[in-house]
């Protein structure tokens, strides 16, 4: 549905691209990146609000690189929603159809469907959009965008201003809507969680360049570069030295502990690398349960330093025996209660070699030995 080829753009001293991207029709695509990465600029190029300095943008088979915004048949949900303050809720939603002079038959159907879907019925009588709550405004803005049945809906940090409850319910609701209607979504965000929830396919943009593109699983399995890894993972990233290779596994030593990793085929090790282990990939081994047959390596014994309670999640910070590193492992409340996990307790962690990330400092992954 969307194809971006070698797109380049400039604002002041900031350079974007060259960027390549491909979004299949009917998918929910997320562009993830920190603030200042160039996501908004990229979005503005796709919307026709900023003139790219090079490259091509193709929407639904049509080259729209130079087309004005009104000629692109897309809809936009900006971060601040931009609901028209001088129009009532109803007039806001029907703004598009009234501009395009659609006859009533054309918009009545989509309008009614959206009103029902997004529970807008009680809001339709409201004259002033400024009196709506954050969640209500989101829904009105969505309806306004979707009533035109656009080819693509572009969303810019859509849930950042909502409270947790409204956010989750709206995220799921929008996903349902997207799937039912077969719409193509292009969502820009800096929130990791939001990205993983909403994405059928994802791309990470850092400092004006698309570092990796693919399904969300590809990012959790193994990010393409250390830069992406650093962006996605805050904990459990360590520099490591190559020790030896055997049976297709690389043994790397980080801070005194040797970890086995299964690298992608065709890669060659470098003397100094980085390893990363997601907190969710670590398994807490229960003393009373036998080891599974595949747990032949990466048995790391350690002691619980702290239990971090993040409200809705918990992490146990475990210092690994005989090493200088500490690993954060995601623990469920259930687990904490079952094992009566306390600070100071000893436990053993396991991680599958396939789940260990291996990266080089910079440059391409094909390193010289």
């Amino acid at each position, binding site marked *: 549905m969307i194809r971006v080829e070698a797109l380049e753009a400039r604002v002041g001293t900031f350079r974007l691209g060259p960027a390549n991207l491909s979004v299949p029709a009917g998918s929910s695509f997320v562009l993830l990146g920190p603030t200042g990465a160039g996501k908004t600029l990229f979005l503005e190029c796709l919307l026709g609000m900023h003139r790219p300095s090079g490259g091509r943008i193709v929407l639904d088979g049509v080259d729209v690189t130079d087309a004005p915004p009104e000629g692109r048949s897309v809809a936009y949900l900006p971060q601040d929603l931009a609901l*028209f303050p001088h129009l009532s809720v109803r007039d806001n939603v029907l703004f598009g159809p009234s501009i395009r002079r659609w006859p009533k038959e054309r918009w009545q159907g989509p309008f009614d469907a959206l009103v029902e879907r997004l529970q807008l019925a009680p809001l339709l009588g409201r004259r002033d959009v400024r009196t709506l709550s954050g969640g209500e405004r989101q829904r009105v803005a969505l309806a306004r965008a979707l009533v035109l049945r656009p080819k693509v809906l572009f969303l810019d940090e859509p849930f950042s201003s909502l409270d947790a409850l409204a956010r989750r319910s709206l995220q799921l609701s929008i996903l349902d809507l997207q799937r039912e209607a077969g719409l193509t979504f292009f969502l820009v965000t800096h929130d990791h969680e939001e990205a993983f929830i909403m994405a059928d396919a994802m791309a990470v943009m850092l400092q004006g360049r698309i570092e990796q593109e693919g399904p969300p699983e590809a990012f959790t399995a193994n990010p393409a570069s250390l830069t992406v890894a650093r962006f996605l993972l805050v904990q459990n990233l360590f520099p490591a030295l190559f020790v030896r290779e055997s049976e297709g596994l690389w043994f790397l030593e980080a801070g005194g502990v040797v970890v086995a990793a299964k690298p992608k085929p065709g890669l060659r090790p470098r003397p100094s690398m980085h390893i990363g282990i997601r907190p969710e990939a670590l398994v807490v081994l229960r003393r009373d349960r036998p080891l599974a047959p595949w747990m032949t390596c990466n048995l790391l014994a350690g002691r619980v330093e702290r239990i971090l309670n993040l409200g809705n999640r918990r992490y146990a910070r475990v210092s690994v025996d005989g090493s200088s590193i500490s690993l954060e492992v995601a623990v469920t409340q259930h687990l904490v209660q079952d094992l009566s996990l306390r600070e100071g307790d000893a436990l053993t962690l396991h991680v599958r070699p396939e789940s260990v990330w291996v990266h080089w400092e910079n440059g391409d992954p094909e390193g010289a030995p």
Partner: protein
Amino acid sequence: MLVTATGLAVTVMAGLLLSQVAYAGLKKPLASLLRPEVFHALFLSCILATAAAAIALALAIPSAYLLARRAFPGRILVDTLLDLPVVLSPLAVGFSLLLFFRTAPGSFIEAHLVRFVFEPAGIVLAQAILAYAVAVRVLKTAFEEVEPRYEQVARLMGCTPFMAFRKVTLPMARPGVVAAAVLGWGRAVGDFGATVMVGGAVAGKTETVPVAIYLRLASVDIAQAVGLMLVLTAAALAVLLLVRLTGRAP
């Protein structure tokens, strides 16, 4: 501080009004108003000022929008140039117009197209220039305060740049547009210097109320002058109030 400053201003304005009445009382001035010349002058003042304000607004809205939205080379220069009529005294503006109509292009216009010198059309022109300078300033600020984001969203919904302006920016800037209309009209209706320069002071033809006030003073008809001042004040207050009330966003 706020109350003191505003109170001071209100007192001065009220003082001006009351002084007019205090000098000549109310009976004589009001009695002097029941003459056809007075109605004529009032009618002329209102018609000409409204025409001038309409023209000024029609030109000021696009200019102000351009100045507010697009950065083009020499923008600062243009911006400053458009401020000129505000800084120059109205007399100078009127006089410059007279000088223009003496030049070759000016004389051509006078001879073959429209007569401006000593004609009501000239008054409309002069007042429109004064009103424009005021209106463009107010409108520029008003448009600057409407975030471009709204126009972008409108355009993505299918609006051409002009439609986005008309359907989104302009309604959102409505208080500013009303203010510009009010100020422009006020400037036009109250003008003496440019009006008398370009229009002359022919009774029934180019004698607006401010010019009539001057002429009454010049013939020492003080009571009449006061009467005219009261009439002008009343008419202006009525119009300004009306515009304010109808211009309020629903």
